[in-house]
């Protein structure tokens, strides 16, 4: 094994341990403190705020097509509750805009 392979293995090892550590410690720590009312509210707000934080900059970077896609996804979800269909609507909207303009 040469040095570069060793470096790669060390990196993979540390990132693996660190990532698993983050996943598990978040859960274990929240178990300890979740009885507090305020922390409960905080934890309940995490999923939607994480998702929104994830998508907002990307959608806005996409410009008008991104905003239109989000709008159509909202309508589609409201009418059909079908996640797969909503995904198709969003992807097709952005694909058309990218290929036309």
């Amino acid at each position: 094994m040469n040095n570069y392979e060793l470096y790669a293995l060390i990196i993979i090892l540390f990132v693996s341990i660190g990532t698993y550590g983050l996943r598990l410690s978040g859960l274990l720590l929240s178990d300890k403190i979740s009885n507090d009312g305020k922390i409960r509210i905080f934890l309940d707000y995490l999923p939607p705020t994480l998702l929104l934080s994830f998508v907002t900059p990307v959608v806005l970077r996409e410009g008008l097509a991104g905003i239109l896609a989000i709008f159509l996804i909202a309508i589609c979800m409201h009418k059909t509750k079908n996640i797969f269909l909503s995904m198709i609507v969003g992807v097709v909207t952005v694909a058309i805009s990218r290929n036309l303009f």
Partner: protein
Amino acid sequence: MNVNINISSDFINGAKANTPIGLSVFAYGAVLGMICAQKGVEIYQLTLMNVFIFAGTSQFIIVDMWNNISEIFTIVAAALLLNLRYFLIGASLNRLFKKSSMKDKFIYMHLVADENWAVTIERSKHENITPLFLFGGGICLFTIWSTGTYLGYIFGGFINDPSKYALDFAFIAIFTALCFNLYQDKRNLIPWLFAALIAYISEYFFGGNLYIVLGAIAGSLVGVVLEAKKYE
């Protein structure tokens, strides 16, 4: 007996529920596999990353910096910074694991990715599910992701431009759809808007991926401030 049937059906349902999002996970994996082949990453190294790291964005960062592989600290720090959100994701799974043993927590948490987490959280608002739903989704994504990376590695170039078909937008579309399903009432509006705003501003100023964590913390804190009164 009945319990067993319920448990295994949770696993299957979790796998099924993650199949649609698998389309974009596959495309994303194929792109990573392609880059790995170009950068000279060995198949066994790709496999180790898929199995033990199992976090797409940080795998991309590592492979991206592959030419400077001797900068161990920089690469590890960059990858873990990207994965900071998993701490919050883990914390938000607290209700789902309420009745689970320590052993279950240790086993099931490894295969938690953005996608099966989001699908599970959304489903748990409407149905009573166990962590096996999450785990079934994890196994499904792991299979699709790995297959994508290997096919990309071997047949590199078969999706020569995923962005042309907006496949990169599929994640965003699904996450948005899942998020809309989590909406309860107008009390959610201000914290949600705040999260989006802070995420946008911090992405604009800092770049990187820290904006996800910053936006989520800011929005959730606003939620606490607005709703905490009823607990006093």
